């Protein structure tokens, strides 16, 4: 919907200061960047550093580690199923490699496992490909140009971006296998943007020292996802079953991961999959709406894999940090949470408050920028109220046309220009209303560069894992992460089957133990996980659902 009269009035305030701000920009006068000390102070307003936003885990292998309440609630919760009700003696699915999750990481893993001789069953909660992979617009990093770049520089950039907290061997794997990942995708028919001679287009991303961001127009993730999904469909020994999420891992008597309990979302029946190895690739957790934040993530990003792995004894790492993208759409409501690329700010658009004033340089690092916006709205009270009771900050996109010529916004940002146009807003003439949005789960289950975990037979790939990106991920390294570690996991799981996997009776004793630990810690017994689906049913409806039974958020 177009801006209502109240917001139109407030836009006039932005317009009244615009000419002067454009002049300052032309003269090269910037709002000064914060010093390192000032940055540190500003980060107190970042959601990660809000003490009341997190609490130490009461139970499990990472007991005592403080993470967001929304995550802790799920990690401490009880299983959706009573292990005593489950008959493990007669599995419905019997396979070599069970891949849980049908995004880019799971699909890459499935292809490599199959190519290495395994029978693969991939189960996915939504459709094959409905994942954050699909939504990644920006690009995929790799040091593909040897005359100016190498894994050495990529390594430095990743470590710096993660505030030097990343686990070195994971970063080494990420950057060393990066060019081969792009090469693999190219070979499979991914249409990367190229010069006429085949040379790949590369651009900078935040925190890169060399231009190494490869892209396929502005739908890089979708092009990668649909290409590898198509390839997976050609592999006879990959069976994909949709709308069948996993809810618990199954172990065998030797303490190896040997399958999963699955839940058919449509028929509401539980099923058993026995496997010789399991690859967890369930992605992230934006739909937990940590601290009430909106999210860029897809519908199924609900933390499921971490819950299952944690219950089976795998520690979590770096979960105390979450990436908030500074600029998500906060109005119109129907586009809420959708990402507005950093490129707008790079092209000169200021961030301004309700008084039409700049309060921060628009090219601070992501976490600092997000913290400044939050502070301006929540502490200073200078945010712009939306008709639905939210608050935002203006991103003054019309400046871009004034700085670089009429038509620039339309030409450089066609996707967002059209998106807003559909709502009756011309962003080359009117500013955008934005607020930080939950974007990426920096941490996850702990794993090694081989993709193996502390649980034999359980391998990880993608956002479900933690440590690759340290405390902060750089743009273009998540698409890379899923392909690199997906391929590693596919190979590793197959090798494990040949070398170490043993036959043995299946058990859910670890779930019994975990439920008992939860009882002893006094965790409320109505809390269950994994979440599976977010619940957006209005409270008014719920009051009238007199006979509806909810298990967690799912009816």
């Amino acid at each position, binding site marked *: 919907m177009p801006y209502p009269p109240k917001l139109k009035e407030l836009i006039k305030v932005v317009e009244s200061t615009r000419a002067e701000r454009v002049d300052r920009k032309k003269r090269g006068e910037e709002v000064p960047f914060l010093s390192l000390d000032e940055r540190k102070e500003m980060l107190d307003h970042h959601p990660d550093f809000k003490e009341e936003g997190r609490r130490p885990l009461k139970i499990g292998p990472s007991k005592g580690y403080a993470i967001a309440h929304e995550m802790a609630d799920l990690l401490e919760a009880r299983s959706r199923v009573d292990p005593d009700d489950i008959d493990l003696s007669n599995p419905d699915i019997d396979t070599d490699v069970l891949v849980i999750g049908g995004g880019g990481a799971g699909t890459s893993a499935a292809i490599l496992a199959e190519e290495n001789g395994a029978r693969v069953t991939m189960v996915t909660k939504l459709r094959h490909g409905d994942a954050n992979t699909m939504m990644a617009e920006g690009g995929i990093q790799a040091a593909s140009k040897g005359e100016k770049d*190498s*894994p050495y520089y990529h390594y430095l950039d990743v*470590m710096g971006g993660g505030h030097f907290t990343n686990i070195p061997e994971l970063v080494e794997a990420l950057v060393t296998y990066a060019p081969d990942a792009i090469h693999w995708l190219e070979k499979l*028919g991914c249409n990367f943007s190229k010069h*006429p001679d085949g040379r790949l287009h590369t651009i900078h991303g935040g925190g890169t*020292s060399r231009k190494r961001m490869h892209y396929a127009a502005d739908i890089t993730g979708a092009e990668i996802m649909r290409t590898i999904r198509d390839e997976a469909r050609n592999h006879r020994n990959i069976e994909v079953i949709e709308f069948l999420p996993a809810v618990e891992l199954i172990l065998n008597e030797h303490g190896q991961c040997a399958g999963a309990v699955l839940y058919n979302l449509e028929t509401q029946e539980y099923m058993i999959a026995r496997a010789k190895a399991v690859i967890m690739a369930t992605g992230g957790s934006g739909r937990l709406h940590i601290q009430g934040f909106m999210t860029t993530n897809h519908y199924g990003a609900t933390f499921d894999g971490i819950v299952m792995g944690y219950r089976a004894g795998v520690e979590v790492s770096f979960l105390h940090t979450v990436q908030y993208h500074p600029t998500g759409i906060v109005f119109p409501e129907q586009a809420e949470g959708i990402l507005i690329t950093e490129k707008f700010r790079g092209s000169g658009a200021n961030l301004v408050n309700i008084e039409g004033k700049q309060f921060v340089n628009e090219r601070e690092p992501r976490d600092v920028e997000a913290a400044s916006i939050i502070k301006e709205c929540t502490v200073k009270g200078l945010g712009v109220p939306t008709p639905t009771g939210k608050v935002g900050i203006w991103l003054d996109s019309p400046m871009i046309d004034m700085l670089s010529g009429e038509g620039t916004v339309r030409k450089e940002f066609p996707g967002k220009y059209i998106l807003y146009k559909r709502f009756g807003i011309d962003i080359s003439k009117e500013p955008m209303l934005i607020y930080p949005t939950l974007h990426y789960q920096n941490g996850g289950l702990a794993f090694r560069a081989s993709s193996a975990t502390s649980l034999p037979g359980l391998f990880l790939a993608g956002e479900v894992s933690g440590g690759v990106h340290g405390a902060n991920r750089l743009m273009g390294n998540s698409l890379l992460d899923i392909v690199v570690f997906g391929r590693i996991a596919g190979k590793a799981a197959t090798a494990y089957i040949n070398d170490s996997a043993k036959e043995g009776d299946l058990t859910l004793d670890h779930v019994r133990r975990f439920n008992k630990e939860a009882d002893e810690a006094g965790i409320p017994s109505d809390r269950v996980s994994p979440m599976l689906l977010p619940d957006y049913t209005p409270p008014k409806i719920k009051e009238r659902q007199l006979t509806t039974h909810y298990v967690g958020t799912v009816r």
Partner: protein
Amino acid sequence: MPNVQKETEADLIPIFIMGKRYLVPESLTIMKAIEYAGYQFIRGCGCRGGICGACSTVYRKAGDYKIYSGLACQTVVEPNMYLTQIPFFPALRREYDYETMEPVAESIYQLYPELFRCVACNACTKICPMDVQVLDYISALKRGDLEAATRISFDCIQCGLCASRCMGELPQYHIAQLARRLHGGKLAPRAEHLRQVVESIAAGKFADVMEELKALPVDELRKLYTERELEPAMSDEQWRPSNNAGL
């Protein structure tokens, strides 16, 4: 049909979900309106950002004979629209061996001979929620132009609405996917610089330097990071760093 809800707020509008009337706030997308009405999605909902193709929806408006389409997560409700989601539509996809397939139109014709059942009615293009010129890429393929088909079909999200409307019963989006892969991996020039880098890494060129980097204490790493040379924002492909350390 009697009202199932009472109109209590001024900004609520009636929409018909599969024929049943619900009052929803006028500013919502179809997706949020369906949730507002009390549904919990299992199918018909994916990325909620307009790119995954899970939530294609067809609708008509009161007194209007036309069929409209849109993504539920991107389309704002209108008063008296009546709609249904089409979360799945069967379409035949044929398996193939990508590695050995020739990047020529004949490969596509062999797998999908129904391509020539297209009668150019343009129903596919008219229903496409992404405004892809579906008929144009099908026509390009009939002419044997894989490059054009790749370009024209590039924004396809594979929701399947084209296939649902096709008189010739084509699975357009599967055909386009095949064309794009043949183009991207076999017709478009490959990146020679990428191949060289992959080879040098496989030969172990950076093994030692990575071992050294991994072993560095944080303050030394921080120093290397701070001092690393930055490629200028406006550089072109000719830019070279002033020293070759680490290359």
